[in-house]
């Protein structure tokens, strides 16, 4: 039989109307398959991009100062990096700042609803930052499985426990996911504080303003036996607060305030929304600029 | 008469300047110095003059500078060409008396009466008349056309220039009396608690010996010496501390417990005797002399570029130190005997080997020598 051009099998077959069509498998969101992004050719390509372009751009934009990385000297296996989150700059900044041993062996827990809602976005983020899709609205067994699988395979996981970028500059309460994951996999959580990224790119704007940033790594924290994940999450949150204090003042002052329970919270003061915003001091005009005195 | 003759030959002089820069002492090969076999003996210029037949005649630093074309144009009007060099002379008179010549050609030798004020006061080394009178210009025997010099078989000297050599003193020690007199003269101007001597050539070593002679100066004596032989001699002649030239500043700092700013000691030596006379040595002297201290320039400096800010700021005395008086000569004879100065005479050459002799003298330090002299005692037709 001579098959006419422009029909099957040159084109796809038509679905016989007598056969029931099964429902579509979702291929975006948490269902996005990212295994390929952790296989060799991709890893190598990403490492190259990250170490050249990534570092270059981050260096120009954020001039990061990295502190406390020596606290990771004794850590052997995978860890969970838990950082505060104020800007899209956070992820590339962190990925280029974490110590070499972890840098090319870290996946980023990214909101499935934001980063993986389109397949092209999924491919992009899985390649560029080694993102894995995580349900951020609730603790989902599937996300948890995926993340612990990563840890079991020796990959560190970068999580922003606030569940998203801060809308107003103050941090949001930590969700228990990271803590839960750490307790379950038995790996330490490394609290990380990122300072200054909001000045570069804040939520809701598209304008990049180069500025200086500081990345402060804290000592790894392990969940105590039988510790409630929510309590552990609070412990991590406080550790990030102390790092913020350490960054703003110095380590010794921060330790003393931490010991006496006076560490200022990154979540900002209590009170109404405007007072919280007001105490950030953002956008406020400074007084007359001081002219340098002679000489 | 056989003699080494230094003539006014501009092209040769220029060649010597170049050669001398390349290799010290090589001015003798290309320069205006030549061995003449048949020049006339100098005539006696007057009744008080006698003929001296040199036995030994030393090669001095100033001779080397002349041969290598390095001497200052300052000397031009106070020398007269052609001349026979050599002013460190021990020789015989016709009656067999051994004498050392005090070579300065002062008012007395020039038959000037009245003498200049300096000569009248006994400071004959400062004589104002060295280019005048019936003699050709010449600051010393060995730079004057009329007198001849030690590097020839015969010279003439005024009776006032003669010092009889004691029988006990060998020719070898006596030939060092003239430079020793320079050193005695320098030592008589030095003083203070710490004295530094820069340079351990003949003059440096003799200055050390003169400073220690008769314990005139009880102060600490720090000397620099580049070469092992110089170090040994400096130590033997009485230096308390002998260091390499670049260690002088540290040695003086340590000795005087001084502080420093930059390379300048805040304190330093009371008196620094520069027996080298280069820009570097003068600069170093300024570095290590105490405020209000004295630098004596014993080595002949020539045209020099030096930063004198320290001199101004620290009110340092910079003094020249030239030659000797008759008294210095008398002391120098004692010194030559007491300090056994013959040990400083390292080598002697006949006139025929003058090129070797001059090369040896120009490289005395590295070759482990101090003073090199011509030995004329065995010359034929003497």
């Amino acid at each position, binding site marked *: 039989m001579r098959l006419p051009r422009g029909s099957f099998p040159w084109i796809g077959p038509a679905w016989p109307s007598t056969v029931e069509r099964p429902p579509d498998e979702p291929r975006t969101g948490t269902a996005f398959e990212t295994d390929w992004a952790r296989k060799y050719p991709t890893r190598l390509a990403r490492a190259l991009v990250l170490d050249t372009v990534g570092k270059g751009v981050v260096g120009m934009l954020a001039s990061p100062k990295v502190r406390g990385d*020596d606290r990771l000297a004794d850590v052997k296996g995978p860890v969970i990096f838990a950082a505060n989150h104020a800007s899209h700059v956070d992820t590339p900044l962190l990925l280029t700042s974490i110590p070499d041993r972890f840098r090319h062996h870290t996946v980023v827990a990214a909101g499935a609803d934001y980063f993986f809602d389109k397949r092209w976005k999924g491919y992009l983020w899985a390649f560029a930052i080694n993102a894995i899709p995580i349900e951020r609205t609730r603790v989902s067994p599937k996300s948890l499985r995926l993340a612990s699988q990563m840890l079991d395979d020796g990959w560190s996981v970068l999580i922003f426990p606030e569940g998203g970028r801060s809308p107003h500059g103050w941090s949001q309460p930590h969700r228990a996911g990271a803590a839960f994951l750490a307790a379950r996999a038995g790996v330490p959580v490394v609290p990380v504080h990122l300072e200054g990224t909001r000045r570069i790119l804040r939520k809701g704007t598209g304008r990049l303003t180069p500025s200086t940033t500081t990345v402060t790594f804290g000592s790894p924290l392990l969940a105590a036996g039988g510790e409630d994940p929510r309590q552990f999450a609070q412990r991590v949150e406080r550790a990030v607060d102390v790092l913020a204090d*350490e960054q703003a003042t110095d380590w*010794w002052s921060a330790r003393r305030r931490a010991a006496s329970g006076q560490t200022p919270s990154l979540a900002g003061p209590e009170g109404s929304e405007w007072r919280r915003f007001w105490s950030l001091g953002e956008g406020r005009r400074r007084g007359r600029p001081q002219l340098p005195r002679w000489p | 008469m056989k003699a080494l003759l230094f003539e006014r030959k501009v092209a040769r002089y220029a060649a010597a300047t170049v050669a001398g820069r390349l290799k010290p002492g090589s001015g003798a090969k290309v320069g205006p110095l030549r061995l003449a076999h048949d020049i006339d003996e100098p005539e006696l210029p007057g009744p008080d003059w006698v003929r001296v037949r040199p036995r030994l005649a030393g090669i001095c630093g100033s001779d080397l500078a002349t041969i290598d074309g390095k001497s200052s144009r300052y000397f031009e009007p106070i020398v007269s060409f052609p001349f026979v060099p050599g002013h460190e002379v021990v020789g015989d008179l016709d009656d067999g008396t051994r004498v050392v010549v005090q070579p300065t050609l002062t008012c007395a030798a020039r038959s000037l009466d009245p003498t200049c004020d300096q000569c009248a006061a006994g400071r004959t080394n400062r004589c104002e008349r060295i280019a005048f009178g019936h003699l050709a210009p010449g600051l010393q025997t060995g730079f004057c056309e009329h007198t001849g010099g030690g590097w020839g078989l015969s010279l003439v000297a005024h009776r006032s220039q003669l010092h009889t050599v004691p029988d006990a003193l060998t020719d070898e020690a006596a030939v060092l009396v003239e430079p020793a007199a320079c050193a005695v003269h320098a030592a008589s101007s030095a003083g203070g608690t710490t004295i530094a001597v820069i340079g351990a050539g003949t003059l440096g070593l003799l200055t050390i010996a003169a400073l220690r002679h008769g314990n005139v100066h009880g102060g600490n004596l720090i000397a620099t010496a580049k070469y092992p032989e110089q170090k040994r001699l400096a130590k033997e002649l009485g230096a308390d501390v002998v260091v390499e030239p670049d260690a002088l500043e*540290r*040695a003086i*700092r340590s000795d005087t*417990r*001084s*502080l420093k700013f930059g390379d300048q000691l805040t304190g330093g030596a009371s008196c620094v005797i520069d027996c080298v006379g280069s820009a570097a040595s003068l600069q170093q002297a300024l570095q290590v002399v105490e405020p209000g201290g004295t630098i004596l320039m014993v080595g002949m400096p020539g045209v020099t570029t030096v930063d004198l800010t320290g001199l101004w700021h620290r009110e340092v005395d910079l003094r020249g130190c030239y030659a000797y008086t008759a008294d210095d000569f008398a002391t120098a004879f004692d010194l030559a005997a007491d300090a056994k100065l013959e040990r400083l005479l390292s080598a002697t050459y006949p006139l025929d080997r003058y090129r070797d002799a001059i090369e040896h003298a120009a490289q005395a330090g590295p070759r482990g020598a101090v003073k090199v002299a011509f030995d004329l005692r065995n010359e034929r037709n003497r």
Partner: protein
Amino acid sequence: MPRPGFILDVDRSTPPTLFWHGEGYRLEKLPAGSRVIYPPEPLAALKDPDGAVRHALLNPIGDSKPLPELLFAGMKLTICFDDISLPLPPMRRPDIRQRVIEAVLDLAAEAGVDDVVLVAALALHRRMTDDELRHALGNRVFDAFNPHGRLTQHDAEDPDGLLHIGLTDAGEDVEINKRAATSDLIVYVNINLVAMDGGWKSTATGLASYKSLRHHHNVKTMQHSKSFMDQHRSELHSSNWRMGKVLRDSGIKIFQIETTLNSDTFPSQFGFLQKREWEWTARDRAGFLASSKALDRTPDRMKRSIFHSIQAPHQMTSVQAGEVEAVHALTTEHVYRQQLVEVQGQTDILTMGLPYISPYNVNSIMNPILVACLGLGYFFNLYKGKPLVREGGVVIMSHPTPWAFNPVHHPSYIDFFEQVLAETTDPIEIESKYEERFATDPWFIHLYRTSYSYHGVHPFYMWYWCAHARQHLGGVIVVGGDPRSVRRLGFKPASTLRDALEMASDVVGRDPSITHLHNPPLLMADVR
């Protein structure tokens, strides 16, 4: 399981032996019948060093309460730490001092202690630069304390910064850092690289003034310390212990923290430096060949900076805290566990290769005086019982011994070398004739206090350190050294090991016994 030290009997089949040679190394063929002493392999490191530190602070040894009970709000706390001379080479970050001091400060913060000062216990050593302090203490401690003037360095010449505590039974002055002496508690953080370090020597030497130090840093003491690495036979230590008693009786409270390191001294690319030659792999051989060929063509300055940039992968093998003497007894055991090698009998000739570094030239030049001190002071004294080499025997050291000094770090060394050693090499004469002049020289004091220079008297101490060896030995030969500086030191230069052995036979006779100290990594010989 790390292997203990090993003594190799050299025969014809033995591969050549590695000799350190300053900023480089050589392979030398030792005559058959020689012995080579190899150090024990690095001990296993503590699994959780930070946890171990915290455990030590909470569970002190001897008559001492746990650290948290000694800390209270409103107290005056001084934390002293060992200076740049330890460990060698400098260790990779984080340095032990950082770990321990952070742990101590954590407890102090919990107790609400406000008045804390850190003191680098450098005695008469040079001041540390900011970078060096940062390396030792970590950025956090440095940034927290340095800007407020709370990170200080002991100044043994500060008339207002010293306190005379009293006299020992033997009439020795005890004068230490005033801030430390007037504190409610001194926490002293040690790194015990060799058996000499630590104990009362930490406080009584590290924080002392010249007036106090001269009682034990002198020729007589050193000649009676056999060896100063063995504290029970060391007059140096007896004196320090006497001073410790005075400190304790005066009511000064000291919480001593001592740590030991394993001997993992060189990074993996230099792994062959701490392996036995016959176990060198192809990679080790390639590493040796490539590096020694390259070093031959490298100018001295660059060689120096290459070697001084080596950071050792040292790791902590123990940490103990509490009362000084109890802590030190345990520490010494740990040091011995890592370093001790049992050796049967003395030798006629002891050969040693001297490396590029000694305690006093970190980031600096190993000048000839330090060469002498490293060989005759440190390596010779790395024995317990009897010296490795018999009385009247010969030491052959291999080092280029250049006539080179760091004018910033070692100004008094230059004068010592140029002025003192030119006159005499006899330690007793040097001590009586020159020590005071150098020790009280205002310029050296000025440089010690305001610049980065060792104290004026320090080169004398280096010379005294050699006194025991000089008294014991029949001769010292330096292989491959600059003859001028070797002679100035009073030693004999030789161009090859073969020549040196030939020269030594004039002293010890034909057919001598030869032992090579394969060091570093450090080892200490227990000579039976």
